[in-house]
């Protein structure tokens, strides 16, 4: 996807006679590499555990990544535009706390959804305002709001928990649409499609890429950079709200430690999906496949009762490996040509 100077090799830039066909582009793409990894993980898992290939088990496994992936879609756009939001997990905590509070006041399910989406949006707006309004670096702002949002939850809840969510609220995190297909999975698939269209088929999506590659150039081409970035922060806050609704519904309870540490898993998912952490390139299909890879690795290791810390190490190695491999291959190929 990316066309940086490193890719042209030491021989200098040569203009191709014709552009690569879509098939050729796909064969050399990050997404294909990820697909191979995903297939490998799937095959290894089926060999490693007799319990892996069971529709219900696979369905349970999707819960390991659906909520994180919903945020990862919005985060992908944000990172492509050159910004980042590290407060997403804390937005979940604050949103979930607000919903729990609303339940104490007698809110019903539609009201809870409104509260969830509203608080998520408000948090996103707060981040967006600080970054675009005051020109502060997003990494600093969102490290601050990461403590701020979760801190409010801790002040409100302390060591207590909100429970007593209405029984029909449980559908969002525990309900099934058809057979083993959960509501969360359907929502995940729908959002994947929606974000793919937004990023790859709309002017807004093109603007996101342009801003990530050259914000000054984008400004001079008439793109309202601040407005687009603000919208992306809103979107990330909104998706954190959606994830908070699903997670709260799945747990049926809110504690201030909810979703602790998710921001790093979401960013890992995005980067593993081929989005450049420096901005400017990446795709939604990549993030979708990365979500599956991470979910299957966690579940596969879980089936083998591998301790969680080993899983983290493996995800870390996978991330470094998948990112390093194409560069190493490119360097080796470049040397051969000389």
């Amino acid at each position: 996807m990316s066309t940086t100077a490193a890719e042209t090799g030491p021989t200098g830039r040569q203009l191709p006679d014709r552009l690569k066909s879509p098939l050729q582009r796909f064969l050399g793409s990050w997404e294909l590499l990820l697909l191979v990894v995903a297939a490998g993980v799937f095959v290894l898992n089926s060999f490693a555990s007799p319990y892996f290939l069971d529709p219900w088990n696979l369905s349970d496994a999707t819960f390991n990544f659906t909520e994180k992936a919903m945020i990862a879609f919005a985060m992908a756009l944000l990172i492509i535009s050159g910004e980042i939001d590290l407060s997403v997990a804390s937005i979940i905590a604050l949103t979930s706390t607000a919903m729990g509070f609303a339940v104490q006041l007698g809110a019903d399910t539609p009201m809870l959804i409104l509260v969830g989406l509203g608080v998520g949006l408000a948090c996103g707006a707060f981040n967006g305002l600080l970054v675009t309004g005051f020109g502060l670096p997003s990494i600093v702002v969102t490290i601050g709001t990461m403590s701020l949002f979760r801190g409010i939850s801790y002040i409100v809840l302390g060591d207590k928990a909100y429970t007593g969510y209405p029984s029909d609220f449980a559908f969002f995190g525990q309900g099934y649409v058809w057979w083993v297909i959960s509501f969360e999975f359907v929502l995940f698939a729908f959002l994947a499609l929606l974000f793919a269209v937004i990023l790859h088929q709309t002017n807004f999506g093109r603007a996101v890429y342009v801003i990530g590659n050259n914000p000054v150039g984008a400004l001079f081409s008439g793109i309202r950079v601040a407005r687009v970035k603000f919208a992306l922060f809103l979107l990330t806050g909104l998706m954190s709200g959606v994830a908070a609704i699903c997670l709260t519904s799945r747990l049926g309870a809110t504690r201030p430690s909810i979703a602790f540490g998710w921001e790093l898993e979401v960013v890992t998912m995005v980067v593993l999906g081929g989005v450049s952490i420096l901005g400017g390139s990446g795709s939604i299909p990549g993030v979708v496949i990365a979500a599956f890879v991470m979910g299957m690795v966690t579940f596969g290791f879980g089936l083998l009762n591998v301790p969680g810390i080993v899983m983290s190490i493996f995800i870390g190695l996978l991330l470094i490996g998948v990112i390093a491999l194409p560069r190493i291959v490119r360097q080796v190929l470049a040397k051969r040509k000389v």
Partner: protein
Amino acid sequence: MKLWKSLLAATAIAAVSVASPAQADDKRIALVVKALGIGFFEAAAKGAEEAAKELGDVEIIYTGPTDTTAEGQIEVINALIAQKVDAIAISANDQDALVPALKKAMDRGITVISWDSGVAPEGRQLHLNPSSNPLIGNMIIKLAADHLPDGGDVAVLSASATATNQNTWIEEMNKVKGNYPGINVVATVYGDDLADKSYREAQGLMQTYPDLKAIIAPTSVGIVAAAQAVSDAEKAGHINVTGLGLPSEMAGHIESGASKSFAIWNPIDLGYSATMLAYNLATDKAEAAPGADIPMGRMGTLTLNDSNEGAMADPFVYDSSNIDDFKDIF
């Protein structure tokens, strides 16, 4: 390509050999803890292995998340449901959030019990408490009385005046103090579970009651502070500090003689009992119902109350004879 294929095959074979269960007909009991890498739970796992050895046909799966979060435990529970384990014995990070996942486990025929840190009644078949309030109340005064054959003045250094646990234990202690003739409880003071305040309160007790023979501190903060105050006043050996504490924090004071003994639950016994209970329920040798007595091997039987909870045993007593075995554990 050839290299790739052989690599893949090798990995697959390695993975399969790792995964192969010990015996197909073994009962697989999962001991799920709040987080891996905590000494207390590693000790509980030791107890579970001991129970498994005694039972013979049991495989223990010791597992848990990396952080003490409910979401992490749910991922673990989902993986255990998928493996169709026979029983899950869990120390919960959240008594409510785990209920849906554990309900699902029970729906699929898995025995679920909680131990140490409980789950709401609808999410488990029984809960194993390490001890009970009457047992703790009795134990803390017994610890003081054991080293005072001729009786004497003792004082209580509690946490805060509003601490529910400590108040209940002291109340229970007062109920049974008639059984320990000669033991005279002269005062109850509050250190608010703050090290410096507890230290000053302990100093105050020593000044106000020159004949004081023992300080009972049913709090892990208070007992350490009181032992320190006694050491600093060079009264180790004259005043015995006892109560509830952690072996790792109390080892030095046992050595110096400021504390002759203290009590807390034994994690090894807890893991052992949880495994025995899970086994007996999973093999239909016992049924969890209010009033039921469920055997748990060398730890006797567990009697369930109306909400299917039971207390394992008296708090375990730590003194110079066993402190070295436990001080590195928790």
